[in-house]
């Protein structure tokens, strides 16, 4: 995959305050969905703002399609669409006019056929002559996306796109994002909802206190960091773990009716077979077995905590 955005040694300091972004390096591949996770004030929005031109860069370089975002700002901005976190819309404007305005700002000729298609895709076509003020919060969020896509960008930044929206709309948004990816659009999204990143992202970046702690393919990250739990329900209650099983670090639960065994699937041996063998040898019969996997949320919390 070719790199479409390259951030090198980016530093952003607001006034004389503590740096919001510290020496950050990141490459974003063409056509991928990358989710940037981090707590409030981590520097996610600042990173987006520097790439899109909303905030000046203290030091470092950002390239989009191999072009510098400061020197070649016209060319780099032409291919970027941005949906900010806040619902920022002219309340008294009609939907179609607002979307057309955005397209014109990017120097593009009017194209009502494209805009009609876009509004249809975002389920806004029937509202195109409505005043924005009259729309629901979810519809306004769609208008924001329509404005960002009005000039047919190759890269789309979504800053907390589903913050404060209901579950149904959130799922609709995910579908829209997946459709855009299928059309070849590179998507960078920041989110608080780990579930969102887990559902739609190809790669995960975790930012905290202005530093990029890691960037990794979602599935690899989950596999690498994931600790699985084997819950073994016993036929007979145990008062303590037998000595022979001490090496497995088992945790007795449910008043001695079950125990937990923790293992990692990324290792060559999980130890499950030998555990079951040893249990059989000392005459412990099992009644039921369950496995549980660490969620991305738990991985995220662990990384931030560490």
């Amino acid at each position, binding site marked *: 995959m070719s790199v479409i955005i390259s951030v090198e040694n980016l530093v952003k300091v607001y006034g004389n305050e503590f740096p919001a972004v510290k020496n950050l390096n990141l490459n974003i591949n063409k056509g991928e969905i990358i989710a940037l996770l981090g707590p409030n004030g981590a520097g996610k929005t600042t990173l987006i703002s520097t790439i899109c031109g*909303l905030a*000046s860069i203290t030091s470092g370089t950002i390239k989009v399609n191999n072009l510098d975002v400061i020197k070649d700002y016209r060319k780099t*901005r032409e291919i970027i669409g941005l949906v*900010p976190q806040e619902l*920022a819309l002219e*309340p008294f404007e009609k939907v179609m006019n607002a979307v057309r305005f955005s397209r*014109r*700002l990017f*120097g593009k000729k009017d194209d009502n056929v494209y805009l009609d298609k876009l509004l249809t895709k975002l389920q806004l076509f029937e509202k195109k002559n409505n005043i924005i003020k009259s729309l629901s919060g979810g519809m306004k969020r769609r208008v924001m996306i329509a404005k960002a896509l009005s000039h047919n960008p190759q890269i789309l930044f979504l800053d907390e796109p589903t913050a404060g929206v209901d579950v149904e709309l959130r799922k609709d948004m995910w579908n829209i994002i997946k459709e855009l990816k299928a059309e070849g659009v590179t998507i960078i999204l920041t989110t608080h909802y780990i579930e969102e990143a887990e559902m739609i992202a190809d790669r995960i970046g975790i930012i905290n206190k202005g530093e990029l702690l890691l960037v990794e393919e979602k599935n690899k990250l989950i596999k690498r960091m994931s600790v699985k739990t084997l819950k073994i329900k016993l036929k007979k209650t145990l008062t303590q773990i037998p000595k022979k099983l001490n090496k497995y670090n088992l945790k007795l639960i449910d008043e001695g009716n079950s125990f937990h065994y923790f293992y990692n699937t990324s290792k060559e041996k999980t130890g499950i077979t030998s555990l079951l063998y040893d249990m059989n040898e000392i005459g412990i019969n099992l009644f039921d077995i369950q496995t549980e996997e660490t969620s991305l949320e738990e991985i995220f919390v662990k990384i931030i905590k560490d």
Partner: protein
Amino acid sequence: MNLRGIRAIYIYEMNRSFRTLIQSLVSPVLSTILYFIVFGAAIGSRMENISNVSYGEFIVPGLIMLTVQMQSVNNASFGIYFPKFIGTTYELLSAPLSFVEIVIGYVGAATTKAFSIGLIILATSYLFVNIEIMHPFFMIFFLLLTCITFSLLGFIIGIVSDNFEQLNIVPMLIITPLVFLGGSFYTIDMLPVFWQNFALLNPIVYLISGFRWAFFGIGDVPIITSVIFILLFTSSCVGVIWYIFKTGYRIKN
């Protein structure tokens, strides 16, 4: 140059005025008519001619200046402040637009509105007085330059303001008094000597004087002084805007 982008801002701003036509057009024209009735007809009929110009005619340039200066400042300041207030400046900053293009869009629209209102007021004045404009081309040039300059000033005010109160402070507490005391309704030599000298510190005096010269060939200060002054004023506004955009002051985070 992103001409479509400039046009987009310009049309958007003009459409905003059309949506609020009463506030944008009818209100300033009505205010001016009231000034004509009160100062021109009621009081003016009892006033002597000033430099062979009837008082009703004399106040026309001052009334036009009064309105276009206020309109330029208000339109331009609100034009850029409103996107700041509702958070839509992100669109301008993330679009392939240079700062010069953004200024041309907003200041161009504010200038057009103020200039149009100035011409409408001039046309309206013919309902009350019969004016012959001595230097019509210079009058148009001076009116246009005043509209541009005060729109630039309004743009600066809109950028610097953090709330609606600040947005109104400069027009209400500084520009309005200066315009009223700048010779809209009188000549400087009608004032006591001390106040005559004091009035010369008021920059608006030079603008009204220059504009009145275009109408009647008379002014409080020589026309060249007025021209130099407005050019200096325009340059200062351009300089401040250049600094704002160079540093991103109050625009970029």
